[in-house]
C-alpha cells in the first residue's frame, strides 16, 4: 500500500483512493479487463474516446504491483467472462463506495456509555462489556442489503472482508500461558528466572511433556497458578 506519511494534507484521500483501488482490483478485475479491451477497440477504430478519464486503471498508482501483469490485462481474452449487467454492478459498487466514504459516520448512539461520575463497581462487568460490543457491523451491512439501499452492493464486499477471522486458539493460549508462568503472588521473580521458566515449559510442551516425570515442578500441566488456587481452596476449608 503506497501511503505517503509525509503528505499529511491528503492522508485521508490517499487511504480512500487506495481502498477504492483495492475494491476495484480485488473484486472487479474481470470487469476492468473488459473496459480496457473496449478502450483498445475504440482506439484502434480511430474514434474519439472520452469516457476513460474516470478509469482508475490509467493511474500510475499501483498498490498491488500489478504492472507486471499488464499484458494479461491488455489482452482481449476475457470479453466473454463479463456481462453488461456485471459491468454495471461494478460501476455501481465503485459509486456506492465513494458515496459511503464521503458520507458521515453512523451515529454511535448504541455505544456502551459508562458514566464516570457513577462509581458503580458492583455492576456486572460482562453487562458493561456486552454494551461495548453491541456495535454489530454485520447487522448494519445486512440492513443495507435488505433495505436495498444505495450501499447494498458494497455489502457484498463487506461480507467478504469481515468473514475473515483474525484470531486463533494459539494466540489466546499464549496469553493464558503468561498467567501460568507469573502467578498472582509472584512479585520478586527476576526477568532471567521468568525467561528460563518459559524456555523450559515451552520445550516440555513441544516435546510432549518429556520433562514431566515424577517432579511436579517440571509438569507443565500442574502450573503454579493452579497450585495457588488449590492452596487457597484448602485454606478456606
Amino acid at each position, binding site marked *: *500500500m503506497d501511503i505517503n506519511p509525509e503528505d499529511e494534507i491528503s492522508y485521508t484521500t490517499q487511504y*480512500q483512493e*487506495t*481502498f477504492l483501488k483495492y475494491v476495484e482490483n480485488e473484486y472487479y478485475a474481470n470487469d476492468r479487463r473488459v473496459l480496457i479491451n473496449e478502450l483498445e477497440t475504440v482506439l484502434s477504430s480511430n474514434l474519439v474516446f472520452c469516457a476513460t478519464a474516470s478509469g482508475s486503471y490509467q493511474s500510475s498508482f499501483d498498490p498491488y504491483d500489478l504492472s507486471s501483469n499488464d499484458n494479461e490485462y491488455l489482452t482481449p481474452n476475457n470479453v466473454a467472462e463479463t456481462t453488461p449487467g456485471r459491468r454495471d454492478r461494478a460501476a455501481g459498487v465503485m459509486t456506492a463506495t465513494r458515496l459511503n*466514504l464521503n458520507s458521515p459516520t*453512523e451515529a454511535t448512539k448504541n455505544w456502551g456509555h459508562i458514566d464516570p461520575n457513577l462509581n458503580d463497581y458492583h455492576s456486572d462487568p460482562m453487562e458493561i462489556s456486552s454494551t461495548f460490543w453491541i456495535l*454489530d*457491523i454485520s447487522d448494519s*451491512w445486512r440492513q443495507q442489503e435488505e433495505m436495498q439501499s444505495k450501499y447494498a452492493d458494497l455489502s457484498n464486499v463487506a461480507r467478504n472482508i469481515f468473514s*475473515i477471522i483474525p484470531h486463533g486458539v494459539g494466540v489466546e493460549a499464549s496469553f493464558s500461558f503468561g498467567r501460568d508462568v507469573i502467578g498472582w503472588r509472584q512479585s520478586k521473580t527476576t526477568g532471567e528466572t521468568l525467561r528460563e521458566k518459559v524456555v523450559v515449559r515451552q520445550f516440555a510442551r513441544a516435546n510432549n511433556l518429556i520433562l514431566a516425570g515424577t517432579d511436579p515442578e517440571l509438569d507443565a500441566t500442574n502450573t503454579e497458578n493452579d497450585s495457588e488456587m488449590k492452596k487457597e481452596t484448602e485454606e478456606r476449608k
Partner: protein
Amino acid sequence: MTLHHIITVYNDMFNHMDGVMQALAKKKTQSKEDLFFAVKLAQQKISKYYAEVTPTMGMRLFSAHILDPFQKLRSFR
C-alpha cells in the same frame, strides 16, 4: 467479527505506551525506570508485529476498518 478492531487496538496500545513512557521518562526511581524499560521493549515488540502484519494482510485490515460504518476514515485523519 473483530477484524475491524485490529487497527484501533494497535493505535490504542501505541498511544497508551507513548503516554506511559512520557510520564515515566524523567522518573529516577528504580521500579519506574524498570517499568519504562519494559514498556519501551513492549513498544518495540508491537512495532515489529505491526510491521509484519501490515504487508501481508494490511489491505484487508485497512479495508475492514474503513468499512466499519462507525469509523470509516476517521482514524486516518
